């Protein structure tokens, strides 16, 4: 009888295993504060980008390099242009997620000036060129009057990713490096670095 009970149990388990995947799933959407930390997985996300631009802009504004620059350049504010940030990771990352906010924080501090990056210049030049033909004389913009940048923001994102043999634990480390380099002399005037480390562990199942 016990053996037959076991057989019945096996059958029930088999049936349950076949039926289980058919259970329905629903999805709920709710609106949250953009500053809320939501880690869906271990990859670089919005919270990490925020951590990077906040850390970078705080550091860049806290250090003395802006005062030093102004002192050495008759009180002039440094003019910055955003250059490429190399993605040296195994993930698709949009560096604009933090460079845009970094630009904004720096500009809004009133201590630096910022000129359009290379990608945006084409549109501006095209508009100016069109304006020579179509704008009224009073509003027509002068050609070749662009502001030259003093410093270029360059950087890279590096990653070390390690996975346990069973694949259940993943350690993901990112290092975002930004630096401001004097375009004329190649001298670096500021270097910032922000690290992000995440450990993802799969449980249960």
């Amino acid at each position, binding site marked *: 009888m016990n*053996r*037959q009970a076991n057989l019945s149990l096996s059958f029930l388990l088999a049936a349950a295993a*076949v039926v289980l*995947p058919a259970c329905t799933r629903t999805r709920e959407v709710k609106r949250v504060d953009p500053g809320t930390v939501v880690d869906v*997985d271990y990859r670089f996300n919005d919270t990490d980008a925020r951590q990077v631009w906040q850390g970078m802009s705080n550091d860049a504004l806290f250090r003395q390099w802006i005062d030093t620059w102004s002192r050495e350049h008759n009180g002039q504010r440094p003019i910055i242009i955003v250059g490429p940030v*190399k*993605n040296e990771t195994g993930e*698709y990352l949009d560096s604009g997620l933090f460079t845009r906010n970094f630009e904004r924080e720096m500009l809004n501090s009133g201590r630096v000036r910022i000129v359009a990056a290379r990608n945006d210049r084409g549109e501006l030049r095209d508009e100016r060129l069109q304006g020579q033909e179509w704008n009224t004389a009073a509003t027509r913009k002068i050609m070749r009057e662009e502001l030259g940048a003093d410093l270029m923001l360059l950087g890279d994102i590096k990653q070390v990713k390690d996975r346990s043999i069973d694949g259940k634990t993943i350690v993901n480390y990112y290092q975002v490096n930004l630096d401001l380099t004097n375009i004329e002399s190649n001298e670096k005037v500021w270097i910032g670095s922000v690290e992000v480390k995440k450990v993802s562990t799969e449980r249960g*199942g």
Partner: protein
Amino acid sequence: MPSARQSILLTFLFSVLLALPACRTRFDDTRDTLQAFHAQGQYQQAATLLDTQQILADYGQKNRLLWWLERGAVAVALDEYPFAVEVLNKADDYMELEREQTGADELATWILNDTQSPYYAAAYEDMYVNVLKLLAHLRRDVINNGATVEARRLANKSDWLRRRYVHEIETLKQDSKFADAQSALGSRVEVADAGEFIESPLGTFLSAVAFMKSGNTNFQNVAGQRLLSAIRLQQSLQTRVDEQNFQNIGDLDPSDVNTLFVAMSGRGPIKVPQRIGPIPLYTYTVYFELPRMLYGPAAAASARAVVRSPGSTQPILEHPLPLVEDLRVVAEENFRRQLPAITIRTLLRASAKAAAVTIATEVGRKSASSDDLQTGIEIAGILGGILFLTTTEKADLRSWTFLPGQAHVGLAKLEPGDYEVRIEYLSGPGGLLYAGPWRPITVAPGASALSTTVEYWWQ
């Protein structure tokens, strides 16, 4: 206590109910149709079929990974590179997190067979998803934040897969089940396994090119070394790849080359069932199936790229494209890393099922009131057992159908300008087997420029 008749009925019911999921489904028919499309190079038809709501529903949540893989590879064959990357990214993200069966999956695979589980990628598929994306990015000329991302993913994944399967086989060997399985199977199936996971040579070649063009000399050099190691491992499997053709890829200067040709051909392996048994164990007999890789065809012995000026009939360059990878051989070798675990699980499951049927038959037989009834129960048990085992013990034959069979590659330097390129596939004696269409390319000036031509012939 049930009567003997009830025991007979129970035995049959149990067998039939468990055998039901093993029936052929529309999903199986779709897989066959896709294979037929692949064999005829009908990728547009394959895309149309895969995109129908009915087929999407048939694949469902359980086989969505397989759908992404198939649809992504079909998109590559149709030159739909942005879509290919989008779909293959979904597959890659899924594989990254869903590598292991859940408790419910394991229960279902232990009770019935491996086909009950959602589809988890084989190790070779895990690797080729990055190789195809790498190719798609290069074709679109997206080196940074595109090809280089895939190159890093591929290297990281290959390292982990190699470590994982070395560890897995070592762990298995220490388990008493391993020795039991070896002695039960004898020479029928090779359980003890030698060799190691092979990183895709095509993938490492493309990685070296991507790193070279992104200016990362260090990684280019490493990829070049890894390519040679992968080729040497591949050579031990009797392929025609010659490492001499790829000696300097790690040291090339970005200004040395500006044109990449990739000639894919043939069809990758599919899985077919290998019936094992009867294996006598104690008082019962075991039958089961294991998945075995069956090579697709790969007719081209060599390939070459022919370059001409637009509108001209005279070629200005005929560039030989050496074989870099036989994907069929590498896939099979890497699948062998997974076979010991599959074999042992299948043997244990089939043994448990056979034992359960034997016990059920014995219980029924003992409870029978007459000799005739006992004989009847015994016959019913044997027949039911065979039916039960042969219908439920089905190998999991799901696999990525639309993989190519082999890859020939080449790098060249052309003067900046517009050209037309055609890839030609040649037989052993050098006869033309197939010529792709003339494809326009533009070679941009500058050391970082790279123009990529990808051709695919399915024979």
